[in-house]
């Protein structure tokens, strides 16, 4: 009997955990032999960057879902996968992910980090959340906001005239509440789960990023599996990813609406989003050129 172990940062209800459960179900369905699963939830085994370590080494766990940026120490091009303003809209995002356009990044990840991408979940739309409303270029200029700790994030938000700042995620709530920063950017689920709306109730629909969350497996574990189980894992990964994308992109809009209906957030459009795009494109181009990924960026844009 084969026993596979997984890890999730969240509880059973979260879209990523449900995606992983769907993956487990599908593998069991597609594979004729005996296979069982054991998943650690709620970040008991660490955060996503710890999962990367475990997967790379082939210890402790076999599969997980994570943000691409966590794998950047091994493969610097990976954060390109869901950098801000990469996808025009949900349709573009879904087409791109299903098209296999990310294959060069997958190959890099396999070679440098010993981690195999078996599917793509994600689908959270990231918007600005702030203590005061940010509705136009003037209000955005100099806006002190927390960004994720990757250079491209800081570069993009600097390009659109905001003042990005490095603050650990678990200090964000306190930092906004006390005014160390004025806001941050995230998807609806996080804003709802961690009650960020209490300190940052103003949501600006910049829709600057649509998250890509690869469903990954340790190559050490994968290569040790029998061939028919490998085939089942690959098929289940792709299907579970599609399941997860649909689930999260549907939930995202619903969650935003729920918070708006409950009066927890005030939502507004950003006046002149096209202007932001103009500012960002040169930064994206330079970033891709630095990584030698210009062709890839063009390929994603043209999907």
């Amino acid at each position, binding site marked *: 009997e084969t026993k596979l172990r997984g890890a999730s940062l969240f509880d059973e209800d979260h879209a990523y955990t449900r995606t992983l459960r769907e993956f487990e179900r599908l593998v069991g369905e597609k594979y004729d032999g005996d296979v069982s699963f054991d998943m650690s939830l709620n970040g008991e085994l660490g955060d996503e960057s710890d999962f990367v370590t475990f997967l790379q080494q082939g210890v402790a766990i076999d599969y997980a879902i994570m943000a691409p940026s966590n794998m950047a120490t*091994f493969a610097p091009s990976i954060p390109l996968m869901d950098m801000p303003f990469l996808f025009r809209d949900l349709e573009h995002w879904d087409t791109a992910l299903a098209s296999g356009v990310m294959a060069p990044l997958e190959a890099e990840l396999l070679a*440098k980090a010993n981690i195999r991408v078996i599917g793509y979940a994600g689908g959270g739309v990231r918007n600005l959340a702030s203590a005061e409303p940010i509705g136009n270029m003037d209000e955005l200029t100099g806006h002190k906001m927390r960004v994720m700790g*990757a250079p491209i994030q800081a570069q993009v938000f600097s390009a659109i005239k905001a003042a990005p*700042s490095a603050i650990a995620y678990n200090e964000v709530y306190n930092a906004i509440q006390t005014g160390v920063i004025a806001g941050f950017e995230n998807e609806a689920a996080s804003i709802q789960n961690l009650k960020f709306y209490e300190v940052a109730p103003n949501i600006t629909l910049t829709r600057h990023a649509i998250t890509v969350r690869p469903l990954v497996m340790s190559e050490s574990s994968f290569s040790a599996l029998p061939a028919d189980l490998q085939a089942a894992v690959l098929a289940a990964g792709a299907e579970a990813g599609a399941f997860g994308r649909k689930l999260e992109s549907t939930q995202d809009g619903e969650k935003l609406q729920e918070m708006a209906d409950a009066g927890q957030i005030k939502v507004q459009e950003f006046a002149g989003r096209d202007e932001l795009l103009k500012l960002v494109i040169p930064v994206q181009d330079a970033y891709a050129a630095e990584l030698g990924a210009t062709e890839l960026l063009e390929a994603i844009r043209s999907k």
Partner: protein
Amino acid sequence: MIGRMLDHCCNGLRVLLGVLIAALAIPVGMQVLARYTGIIPVYLWTEELATFIFVWAVMIGAMMAVWDGTHFDVRVIPDATSPLMILLQDGFVLVMITAFALIFFWYGIEYAKFGYIQNSVMMRANMLITYISVPIAGAMWTLFAGYRLYEAVMVYKNRTVAAQ
């Protein structure tokens, strides 16, 4: 002779530890200044640099404490009185530390290699610069605890010789 060499070595570590603690204030202080005063731009690498220094400070302090015997222990069983019991009591602790030190050293080499294939996100620094502290700590512990073990045996020998 070896004892004096290790003593010098440990003194070097002491100076280094003091310098690291002082240096720690720089990136953290810059971070506060940058965000609050706007005098200097907000550097996203300050946090990364601070943790680099911090890791080294902890590892160096942990190395020295083995030489000085200042890692905290718990005294529930009474102090040994006879020379043999003293040797067994001190010796057991030192043997356990040396054994763990060897594990830390051996797997630490693997761990350093694991650091070597990574680059930090903000500064793009090769992660070997911090991961290498693991096998170094293992090696220093082995030397320190190993020598203390040798000393304990010598003290025992001298005592039994003196008693005869």
